[in-house]
């Protein structure tokens, strides 16, 4: 199996889907001539031409709306946001139009489109450009929300997202683009809404998604050296959430920690904890703990940024706490 970067895995998925279906096209800021702000669309303009790889002005609301219109008349647009922080301007099209049109048209208009781009914090991009939006987007009925954490999941989920007849929000990560992993060639599909058990152990469940999946695997490796073996449940999709996978793991381990990039209040972890208390009440040996960003706008200063972010050390401490080891 080829080892690819997360970026190349996305490019591969885009290329394969552009080849497979000529209704698919990509648009966004700098996606064509500049090969994408993060080079995800490298080489695609040369291969598919300017009708299918479309540069847009710096007008998030405008081109998101163009994408919605194109989807309504039968094309399958992929709208790239340079980051989801900029996509806030386009949320009216995402939330009020893309997510609602199938419903409000009584099923007359499908919305087969993808909104994609990097989500969450990178390094020292400060308060306005370091935010994880998945809990906002996962709140909306009518949207699906993918948060792949590995190159293989990025490829498999992007292909599923492009083929889906519903609007799919696809959250990537600036810090993920250079990470590497094995990626199956060709037709590799990861179904939306299915979690992946990335590590197996009996002592605790660490439930996570997106960028934090990598952190979670590091946590599992660190703890294994101490003889503590954990399940790492990578949700991969946060709407819909694979509740069965969560329940299966927690019913086995009897304790859980939820790790996420975003803030605490109304975060994805709050929803996961709700599922756990409903499905696994009699299986719990300890309250479920959460690891998340501290409740502050992301600081710019390096040391403060590090302190504000969730990390492996915080996750390890939480796992030991639910195991009554601290």
């Amino acid at each position, binding site marked *: 199996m080829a080892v690819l970067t997360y970026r190349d895995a996305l490019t591969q998925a885009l290329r394969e889907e552009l080849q497979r279906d000529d209704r698919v096209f990509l648009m966004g800021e700098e996606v064509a001539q500049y090969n994408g702000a993060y080079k995800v669309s490298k080489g695609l303009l040369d291969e598919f031409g300017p009708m299918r790889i479309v540069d847009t002005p710096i007008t998030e609301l405008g081109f998101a709306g163009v994408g919605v219109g194109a989807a309504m008349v039968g094309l399958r647009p992929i709208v790239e946001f340079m980051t989801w922080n900029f996509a806030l301007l386009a949320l009216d099209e995402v939330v009020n139009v893309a997510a609602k049109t199938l419903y409000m048209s009584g099923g007359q208009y499908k919305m087969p489109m993808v909104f994609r781009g990097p989500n969450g914090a990178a390094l020292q991009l400060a308060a306005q450009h370091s935010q994880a939006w998945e809990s906002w987007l996962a709140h909306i009925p009518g949207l699906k929300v993918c948060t792949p954490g590995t190159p293989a999941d990025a490829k498999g989920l992007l292909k599923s997202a492009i083929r889906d007849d519903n609007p799919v929000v696809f959250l990537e990560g600036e810090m993920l683009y250079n990470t590497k992993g094995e990626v199956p060639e060709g037709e590799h599909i990861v179904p939306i809404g299915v979690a992946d058990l990335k590590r197996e152990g009996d002592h605790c469940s660490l439930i996570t998604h997106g960028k934090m999946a990598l952190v979670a695997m590091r946590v599992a490796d660190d703890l294994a050296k*101490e*003889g503590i073996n954990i399940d790492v449940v990578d949700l991969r999709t946060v709407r819909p959430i694979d509740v069965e996978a969560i329940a299966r793991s927690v019913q086995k381990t009897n304790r859980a920690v939820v790790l996420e990039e975003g803030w605490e209040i109304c975060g994805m972890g709050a929803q996961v904890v709700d599922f756990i208390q409903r499905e696994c*009440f009699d299986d719990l040996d300890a309250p479920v703990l959460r690891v998340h960003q501290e409740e502050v706008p992301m600081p710019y200063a390096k040391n403060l940024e590090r302190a504000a972010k969730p990390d492996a050390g915080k996750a390890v401490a939480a796992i*030991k706490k639910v195991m009554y*080891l601290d």
Partner: protein
Amino acid sequence: MATKVVMEALSPTMEEGRLVKWSKNEGDQVKSGDVLAEVETDKAVMELVARGDGVLRKRLANEGDASPVGTLLAVIAAPDENIDSIVGSAGAAAPPAAQASQSAPAEQTAQAGSASPAKAGAPNQAVADTRESAGRSSVPQSPAQSQGEASTPPQQKAGAQAPAPPPPSRPAAPPRPTAGPPAAPRGNGASHPAAPAGGRQRTSPLARRLATERGIQLGGIQGSGPGGRIVKRDIENAKAAGGGAGRSAAAERLATEGDFKDVPLTQIRKTIARRLSESNGPVPTFFLTAEFDATRAAELRTQLSEMGDQYKASFNDIVIKAVALALAEHPEVNAHWLGDKIRNFNRIHVAMAVAVEDGLITPVLFDADRMTLWEISAKAKDLAKRARERKLLPEEYTGSTFSVSNLGMFGIDQFTAIINPPEAGIIAIGGVEEKPVVIDGQLEVRQRMRVTMSCDHRVIDGATGAKFLQTVRRYIENPLSLII
């Protein structure tokens, strides 16, 4: 001048009331007409109001206490007034002066299960109470609902009776989780705060489930988690240390934590019990009779015996299995009357009456709902044989939660069995015989069986018993459900 606050007759027939909740704290300024407390009468939950002005100096009753009308509950007086003599006279009842007419407040909350006398005035306990009632106060409750609310979970009870909380330091070698990692945990010397005295025993949901499954009493276990919480490893250790020992003794079996739920008697339940006992002897019994179609059960028996001796089952075995499964669906029938409460059992131990030379004895099929029909058949045969040989051990004929009596083999069509107290019911089985029955306008010959249930009306109401019998009928008339 001091004002005595007494339990007033808040309804014409009220003889005692349960103080559900104090609305004022000691030291609060009160005016005549202020609501002091909420009181559950035999009919409803009512407000007890102040009959004088001043400071609520002393509360003499605890939430959850039931007191006869006229009992001194509290004293209202001036801040500096000496009330020693009044407080000292508590118990010497003064008759209520006024007739209250307020209707029940809709936001009534039920007793929070914290009847511990140590509680009033202990600040940390007060905080806990506030938290506990906060979640309930917004839910309007009728007195009937408050019956369920007031029920004390078993582990809560156990906590109150448990020995002193564990010392704050953990043992040198702390118990590890199952298959625990070999690495030494950090912070070995860390201490967990002890459980609050008189507070409820904290137990993780998993630990509670495991204790129930393994028949381990939580009351005797010291929790090693935060706040004295009993966690999985404590159950594992208790098991290793023989915490489940003595399980075979019937008394232990019934006392096992989590195997039952005690339901405190509401005023209406008390009134029903008292009135019915007056009318009908100590166990106010009524009878429900039904005729079941046993044709399919008879066919099943024939087919089973054709399969070989090891598959044979009697009608008695079939009925016991059906009753056990029905009890599982109707825990309110699987109950004991204990005078001050009803105990609903989660486990099902069915006694069967066996005639012996000079009387009868009732050996017990423990956990009959979990036994297969053939296990029941084999066990029943063994018990009956040893009963006639007078070789039963005491724990084999005590500890039942419900009984079945069968005189079918003597050619009896139908009879009423006497309840075996404190059980709440017994089923009497008549013989299976061919009878003409009209089905869809056609006369058919069917195998019929008459079943009569005796019910202790203090525990089982008519509709409750009837619903239970419906379930028994469903099993007996669809006997495949007994073997799959």
